[in-house]
């Protein structure tokens, strides 16, 4: 006899089913609701940024240096150029180092103990606050020298290296092994294989990774506070304090003047548009004429 299963009354069955279905609908509703709740501030930030920024932009913003307190007008031309210079310094130092580190992890240190330790350190370094990088660059350079664009570039470069290392490694891992074996079979030395086969195949992905790192540091204010320091005038020397767009936005946002708030919004819009524009342009340029990688 198999009638050992306890019989539930019809009513109880119905009650349980009703409760389960209610919980299910409740959770579904909760998920929909929270998505809406999250999307509201996002749309609000973007909309407000576009509205305020676009209405505050004018030609002077791109051609003039900041006006002294009490005078209206002025722009952020020197900050835009300064940001460009500091980011160029950071990229020149950070990108080759990061890519080379990624090549080591993907082509030499695969599965080894050392590779795993380096990978882990890179991931942890990725999460270190940017302000700490600022203090480190201050202690390394500014203390012995002075506030300078170079120190700002070093702080940003330190932030770029771990990100680029990890994305380069991941991109190289997607290059089919058969390509490398074919190259080895032709008697091509390993360094040549890496340079002309692996890196070339993975190049679009690596460039995307570099641009993500670039975009991340381009908006950073904290590491520049006591390295590049900011400057209200034109400066093209790497050894002098230099203005940067995020720094100038920070200073203007905290000021009590409406005029400067207006400029801060315009600066925020220009910063985001410039970041996105440079990322898109580089990626478009890089995606031409490359071998498609992947599985």
């Amino acid at each position, binding site marked *: 006899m198999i009638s050992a299963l306890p019989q539930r009354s019809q009513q109880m069955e119905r009650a349980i089913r009703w409760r389960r279905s209610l919980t299910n609908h409740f959770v579904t509703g909760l998920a929909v609701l929270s998505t809406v709740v999250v999307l509201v501030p996002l749309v609000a930030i973007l909309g407000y940024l576009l509205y305020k920024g676009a209405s505050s932009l004018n030609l002077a913003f791109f051609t003039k240096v900041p006006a002294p307190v009490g005078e209206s007008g002025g722009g952020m031309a020197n900050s835009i150029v300064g940001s460009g210079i500091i980011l160029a310094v950071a990229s020149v130092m950070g990108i080759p180092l990061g890519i080379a580190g990624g090549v080591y992890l993907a082509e030499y240190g695969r599965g080894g103990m050392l590779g795993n330790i380096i990978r882990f350190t890179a991931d942890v370094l990725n*999460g*270190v606050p940017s302000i700490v990088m600022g203090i480190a660059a201050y202690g390394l350079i500014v203390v012995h020298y002075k506030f300078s664009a170079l120190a700002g570039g070093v702080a940003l470069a330190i932030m770029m290296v771990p990100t680029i290392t990890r994305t380069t490694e991941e991109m190289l891992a997607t290059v089919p092994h058969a390509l490398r074996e074919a190259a080895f079979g032709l008697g091509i030395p390993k*360094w040549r294989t890496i340079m002309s086969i692996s890196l070339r195949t993975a190049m679009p992905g690596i460039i995307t990774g570099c641009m993500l790192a670039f975009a991340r540091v381009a908006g950073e204010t904290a590491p520049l506070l006591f390295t590049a320091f900011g400057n209200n005038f034109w400066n093209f020397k790497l050894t002098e304090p230099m203005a940067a767009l995020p720094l100038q936005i920070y200073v203007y946002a905290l000021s009590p003047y409406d005029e400067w708030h207006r400029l801060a919004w315009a600066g925020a819009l220009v910063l985001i548009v410039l970041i996105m524009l440079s990322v898109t342009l580089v990626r478009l340029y890089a995606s031409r004429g490359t071998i498609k990688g992947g599985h």
Partner: protein
Amino acid sequence: MNQPERVTLPTPIIAPAGRTPEQEPPAVAVPDQPSEIRRFLRECGSGRAADGTFGALMLVSAFSIFVIVALILWVLIHDSQLSIHTFGWKFFGSSAWDPVNGSFGALPFIYGTLVSSLLALLIAVPLSLCVSIFVLDICPPVLRGPISFLTELLAAIPSVVYGLWALVVLVPIMRDTVGPVLEKWLGWTGLFAEPNFGVGMLTASIVLAIMIFPIISSISRDVMKAVPIHQREAALALGATRWEMLRIGVLRNARIGIVGAVILGLGRALGETIAVTMVIGNHPDIVKNLFNPAYTLASVIANEFTEATGDLYVSALIEIGLALFLVTIVVNAIARILVWAVTRGNSTRVA
């Protein structure tokens, strides 16, 4: 045996009159004998020396990550010697922050950092989990792309822009609309009491929550995606509703990774500087009231470092930086280990 009886030789091509085959340009260009320099370079490039040099160069670059960590640690320890020797461990237990009289203690900043980060997690974690569930299992496929894109966009906005938005838009809302409501209904808890300036712990936590939402949501989504599909199918086959399937089949299997994602978000919140500095009010107090201005480890450095006068003041700020560095390293290491434990073996990318 297999040899043919007779081999027919190809008939020689008769060159047209007047031109001998020697004068014909070769179909494939035969390069000249390479010069001495070229040959030397080519031998270098294919020899063992080139491979060794290249490998060593890559190894040195990879080691630069260790060098960076070591340099940061060394600089922070070296520059904070004065403060470490003057205050010792009392530095982290004292709540006095009086630059004029030269007494420094980090307790208010530790308190501010912990409370603001935990509050931010309290707001962001349930929301991000719900959004991950929504995107993975509930929403129509048409919406999946746009929502993911929007959340990634949220991650791309610079910190200073969040601060600007919070200062101009969020602070008045907190002061005039949300604040009074909270005070009326929850004032008895003592957490929400006058005076409410709009800037303070609660506003900073909300901004932090918005900022850490993308990282928690994207990683927990990756982790949930990494759960084998059989788990879902098995739960559904047993007659589970969608929520039961998610609870039994997905959330339970992904819980370690989700904890990792949450801790990664915590690491981000602990170190977030600029946006917090702009809205937290920057006042070293330890009070229960969440409307009260507060201070965090990162924001005190950002706010006071450039105007710090005196070696002891600077050294105390650098020691705060050292504490922040060590705490975030430990937090991130724990988070990475947890996330790796879940996604290892999958091709899921963890940002």
